[in-house]
């Protein structure tokens, strides 16, 4: 589960206990580099391309993808960030709070938007993100890049670019940081 969701859903007093490292920091960097080339290849160039990271876990990955894409294509790629709290379908069922203010200063109309998140799980965050995104213009196309796809989808959503496919149990937790990707459990204190 993404860092963002974890801070919302963690029962009071619960703790993330890492069990195994599944990607090292350099694995993550290699995955970013590969995904940047895939984005370039798929879109036959980077014209009209913008990156939008999901708050908060997707934002640093979007920035790194942006830097790498600039090296690949030679042009600067606009990078924004999106908070989907007000578009979630579980408002009222659990505590939902915005993590940070959405920052999209460019019009998305006609652009190819690559949504970027750290972990793809149920797909509900992405569903909310697609709705939120439409407030900033009618994108020509929306693609999805995630560092980890951990399965257990509840909606018909699939990623276009994946750092690593990671089979998990539903009750496990995936934590993506600059130091790599950890798989672990939530333990009640």
């Amino acid at each position: 589960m993404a860092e963002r969701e974890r801070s919302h859903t963690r029962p009071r007093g619960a703790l993330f206990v890492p069990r195994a490292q599944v990607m090292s920091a350099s694995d993550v960097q290699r995955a970013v580099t590969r995904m940047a080339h895939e984005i370039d290849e798929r879109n036959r160039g980077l014209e009209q391309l913008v990156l939008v990271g999901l708050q908060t876990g997707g934002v640093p990955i979007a920035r790194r993808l942006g830097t790498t894409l600039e090296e690949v294509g030679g042009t600067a790629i606009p990078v924004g960030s999106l908070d989907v709290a007000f578009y979630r379908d579980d408002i009222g069922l659990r505590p939902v709070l915005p993590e940070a203010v959405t920052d999209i200063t460019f019009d998305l109309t006609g652009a190819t938007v690559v949504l970027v998140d750290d972990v793809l799980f149920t797909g509900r965050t992405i569903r909310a993100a697609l709705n939120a995104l439409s407030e900033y213009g009618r994108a020509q196309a929306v693609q999805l890049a995630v560092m980890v796809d951990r399965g257990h989808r509840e909606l018909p959503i699939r990623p276009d670019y994946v750092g690593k496919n990671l089979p998990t149990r539903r009750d496990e937790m995936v934590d993506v940081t600059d130091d790599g990707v950890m798989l672990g459990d939530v333990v009640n204190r």
Partner: protein
Amino acid sequence: MPQHLLAIDDLGPDGIAEVLRVTDSFVEVGHRANPKVPALRGRTVATLFFEDSTRTRVSFETAAKRLSADVLSFAAGSSSVKKGESLRDTVETIEAMGIDAIIIRHSSSGAPTQVARWVDDTAVVNAGDGWHEHPTQALLDLYTVRQALAEAADGGTGDDGDDGTRAFKGLQVVIVGDIRHSRVARSQVAAYAALGAEVTLVAPRTLLPPSLEGWPVASVSHDLDRELVDADVVSLLRVQSERGSGEFVPSLREYTAGFGLTARRAAALKPGALILHPGPMVRGVEIASEVADLPAARITGQVSNGVAVRMAVLFLLLAQGPGEGSLHE
């Protein structure tokens, strides 16, 4: 977040900081071409105003509609209250309709608190009760000050773990006017003090409450000229003629001479000092017309922030679900 917002003390410093932080997101929503989010779809909010108000009611209703909630507007003058129905029966009728939040304004201090005792799950928001409190007004004042301070500091909030409330520590806030009859002043004092600001009340003796015991104010003064020199924020209150505050001063002209923010007094403010007024302002009495239009005056900003702050309050009260979060999915 508590179930109700009846007074600033219900929130505490952390609750206030939370409201201000969530307001940032709603300000961003307000800047969009379509300033509406689906967050409270399917929820119903009732405004129950037993006292005339346009700006507060419209501000709350706009906030609720921008959250996609349904809004029932209930004005006492045209309701069954006129036919003799008691407040309790009115509230229980509304609750029985399945309303999620009641936003109430009443001329009696404590009416929202009483209503909160009668309801089960409905959230009650105080939109002004008698001389008691008007908490959302104080919150929007704080938000406006926080926004201005962040602009002055070039937006330096967030990255260092500061939610923008640190700047309130030691901030010199001067509240001028009819403190005695003002629910806004009570909420402002509680809110500024909760964040560590130093509040000075300035008013003629007749417009101060009989006792200031329990008010977390640093000082009380009757000399506006002396207090303005060090002020970071000057918050003006209206002379409330309809509440009889005119009877507590010899004349409005004499009030203006002693306590009005005239152009001469505004010139004595230090650079960067802010001027706030909850509105409706009476130009020429508590504030000179040219002062109200200075860049230091954030009065229009207060109004637009009011909608975002009330969106944050309604969102926090209605959207948080069961308090003890369980691992979802």
